[in-house]
């Protein structure tokens, strides 16, 4: 029995208890059912990441200042198996390279979504990925030389690198569902418009750790969850 299954079971029992024992929850569900979709909100763990001990000085001049990396966040999505969205009609996601960091450093997109990588710094950047869901290499480009958008056609984790600056890293989680969110730095999230029913909720904590939860959403229900203790042993 895997730990994840164990957790899932515990949480499912807890969810059932909440639904049975809490009148407030029942009222919420009734309200949500009026609009026909459900909402899930709550808190998930955010793995504290050590700030890299030394960020390489990329001298020689002109020297530049490397901004601090974005604080860590987690990603949450509900369900899977949805067909990719149409790239032509989908608003591209912008992942900037700004202050010699990817911004945002963590993003979730639905498969089929184009992603653009504007360079906001004064020096060259490059963007490439060797992740199996989407391999690409845009090469080097300067500010204003915006390369063509990259369509994320398969679900999975796409890790983004800059060939020029080894410390730069972004994680792009491509999901085959329209319901997803990136938490704030505390791990809080909210996803709406979910078709009621039984769903698997995936919580991405790090490239190496994604946990799932099962929920059963009633129409119009707002499910509040507290999954803050979900993380396993902190990663090494």
């Amino acid at each position, binding site marked *: 029995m895997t730990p994840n299954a164990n957790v899932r079971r515990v949480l499912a029992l807890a969810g059932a208890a909440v639904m049975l024992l809490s009148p407030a929850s029942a009222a919420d569900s009734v309200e949500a059912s009026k609009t026909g979709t459900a909402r899930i909100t709550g808190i998930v763990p955010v793995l504290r990441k050590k700030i890299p001990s030394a960020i390489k000085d990329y001298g020689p001049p002109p020297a530049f200042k490397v901004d601090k990396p974005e604080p860590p966040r987690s990603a949450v999505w509900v369900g899977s198996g949805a067909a990719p969205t149409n790239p032509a009609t989908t608003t591209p996601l912008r992942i900037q390279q700004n202050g010699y960091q990817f911004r945002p450093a963590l993003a979730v997109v639905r498969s089929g979504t184009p992603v653009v990588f504007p360079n906001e710094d004064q020096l060259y950047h490059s963007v490439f990925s060797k992740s199996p869901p989407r391999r690409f290499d845009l090469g080097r480009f300067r500010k204003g030389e915006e390369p063509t958008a990259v369509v994320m056609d398969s679900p999975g984790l796409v890790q983004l690198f800059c060939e020029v600056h080894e410390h730069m890293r972004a994680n792009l989680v491509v999901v085959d569902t329209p319901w997803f969110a990136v938490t704030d730095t505390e791990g809080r999230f909210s996803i709406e418009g979910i078709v009621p029913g039984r769903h698997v909720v995936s919580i991405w904590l790090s490239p190496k750790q994604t946990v799932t939860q099962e929920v059963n959403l009633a129409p119009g229900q707002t499910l509040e969850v507290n999954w803050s203790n979900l993380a396993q042993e902190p990663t*090494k």
Partner: protein
Amino acid sequence: MTFASRISIAICGAVLLEMAVVMGASGTRIRQAYLDALRGSLEARIDAVAQSQLEASARALAETERLVRSPRLIATVLSGDREDLLQTAADELRTALEQAGEGAGFVFVSDDAELARSHGITPAAGHAAAAIARSVIRSGDTSRVVRTAAGGRPVEILAAAIVDRSEDTVVGALALVRPVRFPEPLRLPDGTALEAGLAIEGVLHGGSLPQAARERVAAGITRGDPEVRVDDPESPSLAVQRPFSTGGGALVVIASLGPMRTAERRLLATGAGAATLALGVGVASAALLGRGLSRPVAALSTAAERIAAGDFAVRVNGAGRDELSQLGARFNAMAEGLAQRERFRRVLDAVTDPEVAAELVAGRLDLGGSEQEVGVLFCDIRGFTSLTEGKEPRDVIALLNEHMTLLTDVAYAHGGTVDKFVGDLIMVTFGAPRTGIDDAVRMARCALGMVEARTRANEGAAEPIRIGVGCAYGRVVAGCMGSVRRLDYTVLGERVNLASRLCSKAPAMRVWVDSDTRAAVGHHAQFSKLSPIEAKGFSKPVEAFELSSLEENA
């Protein structure tokens, strides 16, 4: 043993000793100087080789460390795509791999599995590299250099951890394998062949030393000896080492001592040649010297022998400045002196009786005399005046000389001493200076001999010479008379006068003697008693006898 051979032996001995000392000393010195020079060259060379090895190693390590930081590599490792990982590493490490040459390669590991391994690498090297890469991950080091032997071949393994800095996690490690190679051929400016090797874990890799020598070098280097000398006759060599400060192992450079041995042999051959030459020269000069010494000595010896035999005319080579020539000159002077003395002696013999002369020369006759029994014989010519009448004095002297020579021979034949010649008279004594046996008998025989000799000489002569002989025997004074500067040895006394008187009284070809002579000669002779004669200086008539014959063996 002749001087020549002694000198030869001495010279040969000196030459051989000198050669042995010189060759021994210079051989040692030359070997030491060669080794010092070689050591210096080796030190310089090993530093250069070590430097280039370290530089190559550092370059490879830099490449490795650059690669493990490369976003492309980290992205590839994270993607888990083995083929992509191999391709990416091969691209990124191309320079390092090309420089490392054949057998170079790399291995990727994670902390629990081997991710990828390049094709050009041997299984042993790959295994060793993977182990070291994993040890880097476990130790938390950034990188590590290890020299080891993989499948019997020395390799340098440069391992570095692959750190995902964004996540600050170690995602794996890369180990680059470089076969250790040395520039070949190494050669010193003088042509001495050098070999470089690597000593790892007590084993010497590389080079072409035979196994035994290889083990000796490896053992010495493991002990930490700064240099190891192998005196194996097959492969004499000198090895120096430079331990690497990191990664283990020691660089070894080995020089063949063959050229030194050749030089030594050449020196030995040259020395032996020189010794032979010197020996030859020594022997030749010894022979020359010896001959120079022995020939004059032999000549001196022969000359001395001839002088001993009475040949004072002999002369040796006295020209020259060496000692032998000086000796020769002195020898000649000595021979000259001896010849001179011999001439003096002849003159002395001629002017004095030889026996007297001998006594004089011997220094036994002093001025003054001694009384002794002596026989005195006088003999003169009858009718000398008429015989010489009308003759040239020269002819007279010739006549006298001939006569006196005849009588002198007779006197000497009977052991008489010719005392003096006075005109036609000869005086002979017997028993002076030395008293002899039968002085009187010898006198008597001499007197008869003189008459007989004269008679024989007169036979057929145009002018026969007739003589008379008188003899007396008794005590006289014999000695040197005159002055120290001029003296005669003679006898004086009454008997002398008596003999003279008897001589003048005796008829021609007759011998008259006194009674003492008769008594001394005794019964061996026939005497006829004469009537006593009046003799001047004698107070009364003197008894006289005529001697007519004498027994042969009286």
